[in-house]
């Protein structure tokens, strides 16, 4: 019998790993029509990112390539693709699922760790800039209220965003 698959990374059960995860359920509905790709503003600008290709890789079980690469982090969550997908694949949600798999495997861009630390420390992933406050004033919007850090921390601990040992330490 001919040896069909020489790629050790190819693991067909990866698509199952994705579909049993929240957000990844609709993966196998994809029939590669490419509506997502032509809808995607990022794909036009950055050849590293093509939603159709990412889905194909996930369907073929190319976990390593997806988990260690940049591609899955480039989605801006504009949801154009998801709006237009004829198979109701929840594409943007699918990328969240893939990102969660990557984080569990220890792969995430540094900026996500920075976001996390900022959220725990200041209650916002990005600090409010002077420019932003000025603009709000111009538009007649009230200043942003300070974040209830204590409540937020409760939520972050309960949901496991802050790891248990850290929770213990903070008590």
């Amino acid at each position: 019998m001919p040896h069909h698959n020489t790629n050790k990374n190819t693991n067909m059960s990866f698509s199952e790993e994705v579909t049993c995860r929240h957000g990844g359920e609709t993966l196998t509905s994809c029939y590669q029509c490419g509506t997502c790709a032509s809808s995607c503003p990022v794909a036009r600008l950055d050849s590293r990112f093509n939603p159709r290709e990412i889905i194909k890789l996930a369907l073929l079980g190319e976990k390593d390539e997806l988990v260690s690469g940049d591609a899955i982090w480039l989605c801006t969550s504009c949801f154009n693709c998801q709006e237009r997908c004829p198979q109701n694949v929840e594409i943007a949600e699918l990328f969240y699922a893939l990102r969660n798999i990557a984080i569990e495997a220890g792969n995430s861009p540094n900026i996500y760790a920075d976001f996390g630390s900022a959220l725990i420390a200041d209650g916002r992933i990005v600090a409010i800039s002077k420019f932003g406050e000025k603009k709000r004033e111009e538009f007649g919007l009230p200043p942003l209220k300070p974040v209830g850090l204590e409540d937020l921390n409760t939520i972050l601990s309960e949901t496991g965003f802050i790891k248990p040992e850290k929770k213990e330490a903070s008590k």
Partner: protein
Amino acid sequence: MSECKMEQPKVGVFISDCGKQLSEVLDFDALTSFVRTVPDVTLIARGSAFWRGKGLETIIDAIKSGKINRVVVAESITKISDVNIAQAVENAGLNSYLVEVIDIKDHCAWPHRATPKEATEKAKAMLLSAIERVKLLEPIEKLEFPALKSVLVIGGGIAGMQTAVDLADLGFEVNLIEKESFLGGLSARVGRFFPTDDCAICIQPPSSDVKTITHTSRKCVYRSGFSEIPNLNILTNSRVVAFDGVPGNFELTIETKPRYVEADQCVACDKCAAVCPVETPDEYNANLNNRKAIYMNVPAVHPQVYAIDEDACKFHDCAKCVEVCPTNAIDLDQKTEQVTLNVGSIVVATGFREFDSSTIKEYHYDDYPDVITNLELARLIDGFGPTAGNIVRPSDGKSAKKIVFVQCAGSRDKRYNPYCSSICCMISLKHASLIKETNPDAEVTICYIDIRTTGREHEYYYERARDLGIKFVKGRPTEIYNDEEKGKLIVDVEDALLKRFLDLEADLVVLATSMVPAEGTTELAQLLGIPLESDGFFKEYNAKLRPTETKQKGIFLCGGATFPKDAPTASLHAHSAAMKVTKFLNSGKIVKDLRTAEINDEYCGDCELCPVTCPYGAILLEPTTGDHFVARVNDLLCEGCGICVGTCPLNAIELRNSRPSQMTAQINALLSVNGTSKPLVLAFCCQECGHTAVDSSGMAKMEYPANVRIIKVPCAGIVRANQILEAFKAGAQGIMVVGCKLDGCHYELGSQQAEKKIDFTKVLLKEYGIEPERLEMFSMVYIEGDQFAEAAKMMTDRVTELGQLKLMEDS
């Protein structure tokens, strides 16, 4: 319940060893000695085969001599032998319903061959059960219902016309109704058909056209002579507004809107249209041009009679047409008319239409005139069309040089129509090729997800398109833009094979729009009482075996009414429907055994369960006194499944051939002899898949213990909770109910009803102190004999573990 005066039963028992196969397992001497002790058995015979040849003659002779008036045959392959024996018995003058054939090979000797003694004891129980049943059986009479040899065909497209011609040729009185003013439907508008590339309005003409008919004849509708067949009545502008009656004699009210032109006077001279001052969009040409208020679609249509568009005409405020008409054919005062038709059968051939493309906002069908559908393109390609065959941009009338097709517009799309419309790839390939052949300079691109060319000659179209230089882009466009500066449309698509984003410039974008059921499909389905599939098309009774039949006897389907079809398939479907109608009506009567449900008025009353449960609409409620009502069974519609019997809370319904008394006698007999070391398990098996799965397990010599006893019932849905309790009382330690798959029940709802009932009965069992695990429902198909053997073993083990059933004192 029925006061059937039956003569004293004299049962003949015929035991076959199937060519000495079975005597290796079963002790035939013991069986005959046992049967001899059973009362009312007047004849016992042993042989090698009783379902044919000499063996069958033995049965016939015994009947003719008056020695017996009931027959029990222990045979193999009962599903065949039953039919043969029934026919022979009937010819010998005995009602075929007084015969019981059991399978002591596949239901006993083979599966229990490892334990011959136990098998013999089970065979005794099986024989006793058959004898007890046959003693209680009553003759079933044959009913005859009149069937009018007339048909109503609804829809005058290619399918409706073809089926009407066939039926008229065969001598039926045929009424063909069409809601539009002219025949032809969608097919007349598409110009040319694949894979023959011939005219769409071409049909197989009637055989009555003796002067020019040849074996290969095909003719335009208008010159086919089909309108002149004496027994074919064509009504345009017409639709069904009321429906009543029964199969064989349906009564329909047809409403015909006025045409305002007398068909037998009009000479189609066009003088009326020439003077008509009204210009209105021509919907036949997809509104790409205007026509007059009095019009004919294209020259080659039927009828060759002008029609007035009610919505556009100014009637007596103008009446110029009336003045010029040389034959006084125009009557502006015509009124809507209604006629009543009585027909034996109905064929629904209402077809399909294009999906409303404006629903897909990103393709801007409503915003940009140069975004059109394939049907609109067909009108542009047609020489009779609004541009005499020139492919132009509707926005400015300029020649279209760059044409982009967008496949699956609304098809294979879960937001609109999840199915593949199946014909659009071929339509686009045909159109693209026709354009390219006449305009080699045109730049034609097809954007596709998958190209599907699955019919004979179809792949050739794909190849021809490539040869002609048509470009293919694998990708579904996300949006169509209008580039005002360039004066072009832009189709935004990724070519997945190149992983490259293309902004395709186009003068004309053609949407390969999905196909959806014709307008009015839902209303017609409700009126006729026939179901639709979840996709909105009419549901055929069985897609594999009965593709032109519906759940409603006497109502048939053909053409695109069941799903989008190309012309060859629609034509095939139409001829097939004609054959089915013929089979149904040809003898002028519908003959049916009265193997139906019977209501006991004494118990029945004021409940509405059975009419709702009957899958065939065979039960109606009839008022009695005051506010009271009782159920009434329509013997013509009743299929004899017994689901109503299983549903009736008052035990007021019985099936004539499976009365509770007959079933109880069988159950008691089956459980009267154990002869094995294991606890008795009773299996109610439906006569369709359940009982045949038992056959197939035996045929494949799969083994299970002999304590499992089988009672055949018409459908799992007939089994009642009290019968289950009675069976436990009679000695069953476990009970199986074996039916068809939940979605594959031969009586549609029987398995589902049975499953619900079993769940409910389990609760009841608990109340009676019986472990609910002693009762289980199984669903299987014929080929799953292994599953039956497994289930039988599993239930045996289960009840063995539970130990002896303890019944409460009063249960």
